[in-house]
């Protein structure tokens, strides 16, 4: 199936997904006119670094920087796409212009979900958020972080390291949804040892009372601090596609090649792609890269290009612990210890899913990732 001649490709989104798509289009032999549209007025950067090294590194604010690009695209930065016309093959921009395309890559990512519209509610999603947070932490005695997922815990860890008093408000045990009871226990112990206050609640909302914002928990209990940061998930940036019908539930479903149709690919945090466990949106660095590689090749070569066979890889660094893991979440039940032993010390662990696949994880343990991948696949 062909979408016609390819002279012009537009990549909408300049995160790692858009950047990787642009690079891969060139590797796949596309030598026509390539345009990248990015709403941030700066080159692409590493988002995972924002809540890890960037919050911690002393004067070094370069851990997020990516090397210069080599795709030779026209980069329109600080410009936002406002609409897509599938029939006329046009991307409309907020500067009033429109870009014609033969193929388009939708890679506008996602944004932080917010609990309120209060200006006091801070989130950490982009570089500006991280730099602003970094600048303010030193002068902030107390912080409340709402959200017990990996991002909330990383932020809480960074704030503690900066010398703040930190309260983490979490729906249930922090990290238990992502990492299961065993590893969540390990991380919570480390967090408590470092002085984190954890408040478990069923729900949390923000309100402004007498000129300052506060967090209201179940049954009306109130928590206050100089700074409130929320990390309660992300929302795909698909509003600009509303007229296309491509994102019926706010997410773009794609096939195993990352395509919506032969001339439209969707990659990164806004796409739900086929996995062994159904159609899933997997907003990870490694996921954005793999999706983008596969989809870019498919845009050029059609379905003859290899399909996506993604095996999630993710990592977190917090409270002195470093975790690297390969496989599909969640991590249910107790792991088998391949190296090390329970207790939070260096270890290699494996969880089995019902289908024989599994998750392999390295805790404070340096291991070659290909080995971790093999461990995740082989039944213990």
């Amino acid at each position, binding site marked *: 199936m062909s979408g016609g001649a390819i002279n012009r490709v537009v990549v909408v989104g300049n995160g790692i997904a858009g*950047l*990787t798509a642009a*690079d891969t289009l060139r*590797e796949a032999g596309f030598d026509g006119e390539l345009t990248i549209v990015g709403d941030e007025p700066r080159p692409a950067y*590493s988002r*995972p*670094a924002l809540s890890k*090294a960037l919050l911690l590194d002393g004067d070094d604010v*370069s*851990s*997020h*920087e*990516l*090397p210069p690009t*080599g795709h030779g695209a026209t980069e329109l930065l600080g410009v936002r796409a406002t609409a897509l016309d599938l029939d006329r093959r046009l991307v409309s921009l907020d500067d009033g212009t429109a870009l014609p395309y033969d193929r388009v890559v939708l890679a506008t990512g996602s944004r932080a979900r917010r609990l309120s519209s209060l200006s006091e509610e801070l989130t950490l999603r982009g570089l500006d958020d991280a730099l602003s947070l970094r600048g303010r932490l030193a002068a902030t005695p107390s912080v409340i972080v709402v959200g017990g997922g990996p991002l909330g815990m990383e932020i809480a860890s960074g704030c503690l390291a900066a010398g703040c008093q930190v309260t983490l408000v979490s729906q249930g045990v922090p990290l238990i949804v992502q990492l299961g009871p065993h590893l969540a226990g390990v991380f919570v112990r480390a967090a408590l040892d470092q002085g984190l206050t954890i408040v478990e609640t069923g729900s949390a909302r923000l309100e402004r009372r007498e000129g300052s914002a506060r967090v209201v928990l179940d049954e009306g209990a109130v928590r206050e601090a100089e700074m409130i940061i929320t990390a309660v998930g992300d929302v795909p940036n698909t509003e600009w596609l509303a007229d296309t019908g491509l994102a019926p539930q706010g997410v773009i479903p794609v096939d195993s090649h990352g395509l919506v149709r032969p001339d439209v690919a969707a990659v990164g945090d806004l796409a739900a792609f086929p996995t062994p466990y159904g159609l899933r949106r997997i907003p990870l*660095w*490694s996921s954005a*890269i793999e999706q983008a590689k596969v989809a870019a090749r498919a845009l050029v070569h059609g379905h003859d290009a290899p399909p996506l066979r993604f095996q999630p*890889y993710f*990592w977190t*660094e917090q409270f002195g612990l*470093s975790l*690297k893991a390969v496989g599909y979440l969640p991590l249910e039940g107790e792991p088998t210890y391949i190296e090390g032993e329970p207790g939070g010390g260096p270890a290699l662990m494996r969880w089995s899913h019902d289908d024989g696949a599994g998750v392999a994880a390295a805790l404070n343990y*340096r*291991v*070659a*990732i*290909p*080995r971790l991948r093999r461990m995740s696949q082989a039944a213990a």
Partner: protein
Amino acid sequence: MRIVVDRPRCEGHGLCEEAAPRLMHLDDDGELVLDREEIDEADAALANAAVRVCPVAALRIA
């Protein structure tokens, strides 16, 4: 051209090895080993892909 590793910064994610297995690998201890000192023109795209994929900016082309 050649690839330079910032050792203290490298966290052993190994995404570079997956991007360019011909040029580098992680050893059993998870330390990055560069298998080619000099990168020729034919491997330049691979080298760039490996550098780009590092989430902690531990690699660069010199």
